[in-house]
Each structure stands twice: as structure tokens, then as C-alpha cells.
């Protein structure tokens, strides 16, 4: 395929969620994984060097076109709305879920020292947090974890891309 890069660029562009290499491979049956991977990375570099308004990013295990950060104020002006942000309480609850998952509600409350029902519910509704199942202890409490949308929202490829919990490591050491 002589226009492999163009085809891959198109597939990434028309996907509404980050598209994985595996997914691209299924569509481009005859092309070797290595070729696909190298074409994608060549595209990423191209957009990086070009340094325009759009960049190809690795998100939630897939690839997606995203705008750069410097142009954000104009997008907000275009949309005419302030971006919906999370409250500090919601952000703290989200941080505990992200780093401690799978985690029970009672564990989050122990860390934060407050009732987290409201913030947890808000995060579930925003689909940043999900119920993962139940813990096999008496009462079988529900355990929570983050979603794919969490990775997409925070621009992470995998959970291991989360910055390390520095202070806490000192304590355990």
C-alpha cells in the first residue's frame, strides 16, 4: 500500500475515540503490524515538527488528533462557554480512586476524612469512575476504578502514566 500513512491518518481522523493499532490492523488486514506502528510514529513526528494547531497523540492505548495547548483560549471563545471543571473535592476523590483502584467507598472516606457520596456520584455520572464489581469480603462492598474516559480526559495512555505519589512513598520507605 503506497498511501499507508494517508490511510492511517484518515482512520485516526474519523474515529470519535482514540483508535488502537490493533483496530487499524483489523481494517488493514494485509499490512504488517510493524509497518502500521512505524507509519503512526512517523505521523506523530511530522505533526510535532510542523508545530501547527493539531497534534497526533497517544491516548488511552490508542491514537487521536488533538489541539495543542497554546490555542485553548480561542477554542473557549469559539464555544462561548467556560470549561466544566471538577471541584477540589471531586478531584481529591478522583485522585484516590485513580491511585488506589480497585477501591471501596469506605477506603476513600478514610483517606479524605469526609463523606464522599456526593463527589463519587458526580464522578460516576461524568463517567470518569465506574463500579468495577464487588470485593470478596463480608457485605461484598462495591469497588470503584477509573474508566477509559478518565484516561481520555486526562490525556493518559495507561494508568502507569500517572505521576507517582511522591510524598506517600517517603512515608512507606
Amino acid at each position, binding site marked *: 500500500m503506497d498511501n499507508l500513512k494517508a490511510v492511517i491518518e484518515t482512520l485516526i481522523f474519523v474515529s470519535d475515540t482514540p483508535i488502537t493499532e490493533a483496530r487499524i490492523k483489523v481494517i488493514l488486514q494485509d499490512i504488517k503490524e510493524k509497518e502500521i506502528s512505524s507509519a503512526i510514529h512517523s505521523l506523530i513526528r511530522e505533526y510535532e515538527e510542523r508545530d501547527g494547531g493539531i497534534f497526533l497523540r497517544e491516548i488511552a492505548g490508542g491514537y487521536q488528533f488533538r489541539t495543542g495547548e497554546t490555542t485553548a483560549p480561542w477554542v473557549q471563545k469559539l464555544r462561548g462557554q467556560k470549561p*466544566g471543571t471538577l471541584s477540589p473535592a471531586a478531584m481529591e476523590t478522583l485522585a484516590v480512586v485513580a491511585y488506589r483502584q480497585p477501591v471501596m467507598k469506605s477506603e476513600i472516606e478514610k483517606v479524605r476524612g469526609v463523606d464522599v457520596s456526593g463527589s463519587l456520584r458526580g464522578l460516576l455520572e461524568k463517567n470518569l469512575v465506574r463500579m468495577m464489581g464487588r470485593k470478596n469480603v463480608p457485605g461484598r462492598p462495591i469497588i470503584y476504578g477509573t474508566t477509559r474516559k478518565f484516561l481520555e480526559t486526562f490525556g493518559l495512555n495507561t494508568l502507569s502514566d500517572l505521576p507517582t505519589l511522591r510524598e506517600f512513598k517517603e512515608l512507606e520507605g
Partner: protein
Amino acid sequence: MTSTAYEIKLDIFEGPLDLLLYLIKKNEVDIYDIPIALITRQYIEYIDAMKTLNLDLAGEYLVLAATLTHIKSRMLLPVSEEEDEEEEDPREELVRQLLEYKAFKEAALGLDRMKILGRDVFGRDYAGDEFEGDAQTIGEIGIFELVEAFRRMSFDTGQKELMEIDIEKISLSDRINDIVDELEKKGECTFTDLLGESSNRRRLIYTFLAILELMKLRIVKAYQSVPYGTIRICLAGE
């Protein structure tokens, strides 16, 4: 939350641990060696001021006030000479809790500094009908959406019976589903087959109830060739 004034004041802190961290920072003291008398006094002064504005939310703050007071009293006890070094510092558990909270508070700020989609970076906006999905496959759906759908209905229709779904009913449905699965696969099973090898009392009861329910619904039929003989179960069919 009833008092607006209180809300504004509380907005500064995300909870009692946050307030405590603030006091430690304000007094420029070492978190590993908290001057407990001073901090306790300031903490109580602070929640007293808050209490006059609202009694409701102070609950979690009061628990920590009690903990601080307790630690203070333990600190005043003379340390026994012999076991000097073995003695646990009464502040230890609190310090641990504070450090843990501090770590997550910083992690939360760290998350907030990331390039958040819809705030700092943007993707393409997709017109709704641009892509029609494949009818046969379905992506992973969050369980929350399903429960939310159920809850939405129970409020819409105001049906009280809907609210009474509990774990027992669902466990029975589990067994019913498993038994139908098994019968679809094998065609016919014995009661003992369905109980499985590692059968406990609970499983036995649910299996029995599930078979009764399935028989009542005429989904399965049970046969016994001789009295006290093996009970055979199969799908009733059309």
C-alpha cells in the same frame, strides 16, 4: 448545608484533615513532630467558630477534635522509664493519616495541572448521526448507566415495588441463568450435576429455589423414573 456563610467558610477546606494541614503549615511546624497542644487549641478555636454558623457539617470535624484531644491527654502522661524507646508516639497514627491525605491532595492538584480534554486541549466535535454502529456488536457499557436507567424509571412511575430489588433476588436470577445455560449446553442434567462439586448450603438453597422457579414457569421439566431415584432435569421446549 443550610447556611451560605458556612459554606463559603468551609469551601477553603476539603475536610478536617485539610484544616489540620493548613494549621501545621500556618504555624510552620514539623508534620513529624506536631506541637499537639498548640495545634489542638487552634483547631478547636476554628471549629468553634464554624459551629456557631452550622452544626450539621461539623460532625467529621468534631471526630478529629476528639482525636486531637485524646492524643493531647496521652502526651501529658509520664513516659515509663524502662520502655522508653519501645513506647509508641500517640501522634503516629495521625501523622500517617495526614501524610497520606497530603499525598492525595497533591495528586489531586497534579491531576488538575494535566492537559484536560475540553479545557486545555480539544478533539474534533462529532455530529451525532455521522456514524451508525454495527447492530451485532456492542462496546463495553458502564454498569452505572444500567442502574441509572432503572432508577430513572422507578422515580418516573413511582412504583414502590421496583425499589425492593435486593441481592437475594439477584442471586436467584444468577442461578436461574446458570442452570438455563447448562441445560442449553448439555440438554439434560441431574439435580446433583446442577449442584456442582463444591456445593455449600447457600448454593444448594439457591439451586433448589431456581429449579422450583423454572418448573413453575414451565421452562424446565423434572423427571424421576423410580421413587427416590435420580432427578433428571431438561428444558421444556415449545
